[in-house]
């Protein structure tokens, strides 16, 4: 059994309530942090090597150390609970079943940042979780963990939960801040970064739910203890949201460093494939990261075991690797049509583009339309090159990473599954039904598009 840090107490009956959470040792990190200097807390988090769990993997302690404390402006900690990356549902699990862990993390982290007003920004669709958090926050206020003069320490903190209303882009930290200010979720131009000018132009740190939920354990134990788990720069544990064609979809806490093969096949985690159909592809870190074909899932290109770490999953770069991202682990068996799936993701990004900058606004829609044509038997041979060209012109040229996120899945699909695109273009009558690979998996028809040798 892998070590559990976040989900250790998840099965304790009543852990959702304050009383049980407190009885199980909850809020100890706040008591400890109130006796520490903010610098010491930040140092502990730096030592832990904890990396942002929202997708980018930026070291949390370092992010905290950037916050502007000199200007004397009020500081804010904002928790990014706008979990919307397709394939990712781990934050919701934490907040739904053990809401006080996040609240405890928010308090401890706010102490480190010397913030007196903090927010949890949750996506509007998680409305019942929003209510759950509201109730938990009320309990925390009643027990003296929030408000004025917390536990007699002289430290004041107000914490509120704020909800979005259906916009993936608000997961981008500056769009989230705009949304929290009651505006459209348009990402801001950077610099200035939120650490200097964020919410209401005040210094602000935005962290993912899972990152903040890991802080209490780090403070209760030590940064070094946390860093002892995992491999290299991938320290600690990570929540993986497993979905797709596996036996046991769900949220799993893993020690970073277990192998992908173990994660998919062991009974402790995914329990193997859903049926006896073979593994075809894997999206290891949410829809934005490159899709991996079967031969690059368990082994890297140079034959090493592929591990669940930031480094191993990106081994080989985009040519033969992917990314750990947010840990949205989507497994596809051979019923999946990569073209259809890529179209599905492209539709998602088209739908979620904020429309502010040209390449993303115009390019995501174009990608979707071309992919839709190919998937529906109206593709042209040159469309594959066209897709490649469009994605390459979006990537890197946009205000925020949504443009990259829309480009990478398309690029990876063409890179690894080009034959499938050619098959769609050349045999439109064979792909008429959306479940075309259910009855005739691509492996059975691959020879139709194989290069002919004379």
């Amino acid at each position: 059994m892998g070590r559990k840090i976040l989900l250790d107490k998840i099965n304790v009956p009543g852990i959702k309530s304050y009383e049980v959470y407190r009885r199980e040792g909850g809020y100890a990190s706040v008591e400890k942090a109130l006796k520490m200097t903010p610098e010491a807390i930040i140092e502990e988090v730096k030592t832990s090597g904890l990396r942002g769990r929202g997708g980018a993997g930026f070291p949390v302690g370092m992010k905290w150390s950037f916050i502007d404390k000199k200007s004397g402006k009020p500081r804010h900690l904002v928790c990014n609970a706008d979990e919307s990356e397709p394939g990712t549902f781990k934050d919701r699990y934490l907040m739904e079943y053990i809401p006080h862990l996040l609240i405890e993390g928010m308090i401890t982290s706010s102490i480190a940042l010397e913030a007196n007003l903090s927010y949890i920004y949750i996506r509007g669709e998680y409305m019942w979780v929003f209510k759950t958090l509201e109730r938990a926050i009320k309990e925390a206020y009643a027990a003296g963990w929030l408000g004025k003069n917390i536990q007699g320490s002289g430290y004041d903190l107000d914490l509120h939960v704020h909800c979005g209303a259906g916009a993936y882009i608000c997961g981008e930290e500056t769009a989230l801040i705009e949304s929290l200010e009651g505006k459209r979720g348009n990402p801001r131009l950077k610099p200035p970064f939120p650490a200097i000018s964020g919410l209401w132009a005040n210094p602000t740190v935005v962290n993912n739910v899972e990152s903040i939920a890991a802080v209490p354990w780090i403070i209760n134990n030590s940064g070094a203890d946390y860093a002892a788990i995992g491999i290299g720069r991938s320290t600690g544990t990570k929540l993986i949201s497993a979905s797709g064609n596996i036996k046991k979809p769900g949220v799993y806490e893993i020690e970073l460093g277990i192998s992908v093969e173990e994660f998919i096949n062991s009974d402790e985690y995914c329990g193997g494939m859903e049926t006896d159909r073979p593994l075809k592809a894997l999206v290891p870190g949410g829809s934005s990261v490159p899709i991996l074909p079967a031969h690059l899932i368990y082994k890297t290109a140079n034959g090493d075991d592929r591990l669940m770490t930031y480094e191993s999953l990106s081994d080989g770069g985009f040519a033969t690797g992917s990314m750990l991202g947010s840990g949205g682990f989507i497994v596809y068996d051979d019923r999946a049509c990569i073209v259809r799936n890529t179209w599905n993701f492209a539709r998602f990004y088209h739908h979620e583009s904020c429309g502010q900058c040209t390449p993303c606004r115009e390019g995501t829609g174009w990608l979707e339309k071309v992919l839709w044509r190919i998937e529906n038997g109206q593709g042209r041979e040159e469309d594959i090159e066209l897709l490649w060209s469009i994605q390459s012109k979006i990537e890197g040229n946009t205000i925020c990473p949504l443009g990259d996120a829309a480009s990478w899945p398309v690029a990876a699909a063409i890179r690894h599954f080009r034959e499938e695109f050619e098959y769609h273009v050349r045999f439109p009558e064979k792909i008429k039904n959306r479940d075309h690979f259910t009855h005739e998996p691509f492996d059975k028809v691959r020879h139709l598009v194989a290069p002919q040798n004379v």
Partner: protein
Amino acid sequence: MKVTIDGHEIEVEAGTTILQAARMIGGDVVPPAMCYYSKLKGTGGKCRCCLVEVTKGSDANPTPMPKLVASCVTGCMDGMEVNSKSSERVTEARKAVTEFLLINHPLDCPVCDQAGECDLQNLSFEHGKAQTRFIEEKRTFEPENIGDKIQLHMNRCILCQRCVQVAEQLTDYRVHGVLNRGDHAQISTMVSAAIDNEFSGNMIDVCPVGALTDKTFRFKSRVWFNKPFNAHRECTTPGCCGKVTVWMFGNEIQRVTARKDEFHEVEDFICNTCRYDKKEVSDWTIEGPRKFEKDSVINVNNYTRKMDKVVINTEKGILMGRDEDRKKISMADIDYNEKIDGTQVKK
């Protein structure tokens, strides 16, 4: 601090953006800018036309920036080296942005009042392709009436949001904004309200394309058939400079706009009274002809330059068409052997 753009070195003050520095140098190094407007706060960064390559971050930190940056919102650093026109990557990116801006654009320049003074036309001339790769149906919007002075053509809009900033910064009550999102984002009032603030007409001047045009000038003339003159009047509207360009056709003032500089930005904003209500020559003190950059189409009608006589040399009978076709459409008996200047085509 010192910054080098395409090999041209220039001293600038701290806080200067790369685009501003490039404009100080002038000429070819100036990146195109469709959304940035120096007179409006909070503009820029959106259209991505002005992307440049920073090959050296600064003397203190010489690392190149990995991505192209929007020059209009990126500040200069001491010792920074930038490639604009000279960079292959930049040229490719500008071509890409131009293509993206055009795929859903109606390309209705022949009936667009902005033609001839349109930044998107200029951009396409410089960076566009003759052929399109976009075979899908173009996006269109329902027409919306925003009053009797300003014509909104949403299909032509590139969402630079300058007009929103005009309303925000020049008028006291903004009634329009960007609605919806993604490629359906649009400039709208939501309730078809008339935008009739004393400074609302400046939305027309700041619009880089034909999305916002002057209804009082609509379809009256191609801009290059007008003769522009600088003019002024004692304007009593607070905040209005009263300095304008009047666009004449014969003795008629067909249009009044603010005066624009070489980057097509107004020198100063004007009020709606000057713009719409003062169309008599007697309203204005005419200062003299307004000059435009040498390659502007507005110069076609330039009164300072002698016009060459146009002679169309055609092959024999090319305008005549086939005999059988001429009979079918009962064409008049014109002497097609006569050239346009009256001489006979050599037989």
